[in-house]
């Protein structure tokens, strides 16, 4: 099986208690937690009133996407983007399903258009004035790995840089028993086809293997969130690890080798 390569130009991260990539690195290396971490992300991309109303899943996606772009020095309006989420916004699904059961004609139009899986992708392109392509995908517990393949494919098709953002939020109501997910977790990468020499380089190879559960510091801390299968990569990036195995589907994985610049 052939491998695909990319460089990392920027990383974004947000999770409860670790509101940035530097915080995640410090935690993964030394177990330290920042003081006074905000309870939820406050993405600057949205106007203040939208920031308050935005679904949690959209807020965390925009927060990490913008952080990754800022770290990369890239203009977000120029980047094609891939938004990966296992379940989308579970709290909105809970609202929609319970409203339909009781009073269907009372369904909120805003919450309906926020219920689409590409809500974060839509707000991202609108907020940045970005006319580049964007997509929103799910592959259940393989969502991050499949999103990574789409991002790498975009590079292979001629794009010079691409944004990949992955996130999941908390389940609420009866849905929480079938689609459990707790807390807010998001991470983003700006991937480039021709990285500068100082950049971390990835080599990604699909393999027939079962990826073990995330066992690093980040993987253990956020093991209740549905996007946990991405954490082996972020633990490796935070600690200078040289490889991670990502769940990519039943009996399949992506071997990601990291060469740190």
């Amino acid at each position, binding site marked *: 099986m052939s491998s695909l390569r990319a460089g990392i130009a920027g990383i974004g991260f947000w999770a409860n208690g670790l509101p940035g990539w530097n915080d995640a690195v410090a935690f993964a290396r030394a177990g330290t937690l920042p003081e006074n971490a905000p309870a939820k992300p406050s993405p600057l991309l949205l106007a203040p009133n939208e920031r308050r109303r935005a679904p949690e899943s959209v807020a965390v996606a925009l927060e990490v996407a913008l952080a990754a772009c800022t770290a990369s020095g890239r203009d977000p309006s120029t980047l094609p983007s891939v938004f990966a989420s296992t379940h*989308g916004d579970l709290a909105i699904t809970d609202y929609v399903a319970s409203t339909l*059961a009781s009073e269907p004609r009372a369904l909120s139009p805003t919450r309906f258009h926020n219920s689409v899986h590409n*809500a974060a992708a839509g707000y991202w392109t609108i907020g940045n*004035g970005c006319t580049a392509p964007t997509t929103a995908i799910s592959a259940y517990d393989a969502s991050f790995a499949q999103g990574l393949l*789409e991002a790498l494919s975009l590079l292979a098709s001629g794009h010079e840089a691409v944004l990949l953002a992955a996130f999941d939020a908390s389940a609420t109501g009866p849905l929480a028993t079938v689609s459990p997910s707790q807390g807010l977790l998001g991470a983003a990468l700006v991937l480039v086809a021709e990285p500068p020499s100082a950049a971390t380089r990835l080599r990604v190879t699909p393999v027939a293997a079962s990826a073990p559960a995330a066992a690093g510091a980040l993987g253990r801390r956020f093991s209740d969130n549905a996007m946990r299968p991405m954490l082996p990569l972020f633990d490796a990036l935070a600690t200078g690890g040289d490889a991670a195995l990502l769940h990519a*589907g039943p009996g399949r994985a992506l071997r990601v080798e990291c060469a740190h610049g």
Partner: protein
Amino acid sequence: MTSAQARTMPPLSVGNYTATTALGAGRDAQLEALRARRSGLRANDMRSPGGHDLLETWIGRVEGVEAVALPATLADWDCRNNRLAWLALQQDGMMESIAALRDAHGAERVAIVVGTSTSSIGATEEAYARLQDGRFPADLQRPRIHTPHSLGAFVEAATGLRGPCITVATACSSSAKVFAQAARLIEAGLADAALVGGVDTLCGSVLYGFNALGLVSPRPCRPFDARRDGLSLGEAGGFAILERAAPGERGLQLRGYGESSDAHHMSAPHPEGLGAQLAMREALQRAGLEAGDIDYLNLHGTATPANDKVEALAVAALFPPSLHASSTKGWTGHTLGAAGIVESAFALLALEHGLLPGMLGSSEHDPGNGPQLRFDNAQREVAFAMNNSFGFGGNNCSLVFGRAA
């Protein structure tokens, strides 16, 4: 990369394709109804999940979905959306084509890329309407159907394909974008072939959601008609097989794709159709074609006042008057995440049979319509056909199909 830099793509062969809609199951049913100008729309008979409400509107409901029985080995996937997926997979020899593809390339080298907007959320709605002590009823305690990837994972289980497997959910552009993503996976060497498709079923979320947005018509939709007042919702499923084109082959091909974002509004299109134009221009560039080369364009044409106005502007800005452009939503309703695959199938039928559908239910041209927008069917040779699909969030995709030279 801006659209000005899109490079031409190597053509991909469309090995087989199928669609199941309110017009019936399989390609022949689509072709016959398009020819006969017979609509699949009916007065809404799909009640709210709790059963106590019925919207006054028209829907494109697929006959017989309730009677579909999944094989026992797939029973855990049972729900309306996966039944429709199964029904669509049984048409036009698609399962046999998939088996042949598996034998030719190996299951690991064939990707599954499928699109949907709401996947099997209808099952989640049903669970909430039948909660027992605040919990899902026992028969619906099946986590894999209450999540967007229900569709992709079901198709994976149903076909035995083992390559990359992904569900694209960008609202109403979903199953057009699957062609673009599959083309990239093949170009990147991650697969040698792909099963692409899309399935969406009528459910409370879409009926009451679009109703809440004021976008649903109380009567059959009238695309590009001056009196249009909203959409008719529908459901559908369809699939196609994409492979690298072999030298000297004959047959249908994917020649280009274009994707863009409006960067304007979550549920309203850009007023000048900027994103639509970008997507169409990029698809033409990838195909190495000029706008004048396209013979038939299947429009998104939802029959909402805003969509059709903007799409008419975009078409007029790009295409010569000789183009035959139409929306087929008067036949099928707006099948949302399945619209991309259904209307790609209609574009492929136009290439194969020279049938250029007009529009159904529309009789009074909007003053904004250019000469490209046709209400009547036409019959003539088609060399290249294009399909537009646009979704919430300003998510646009255009595809170009042709025949091997």
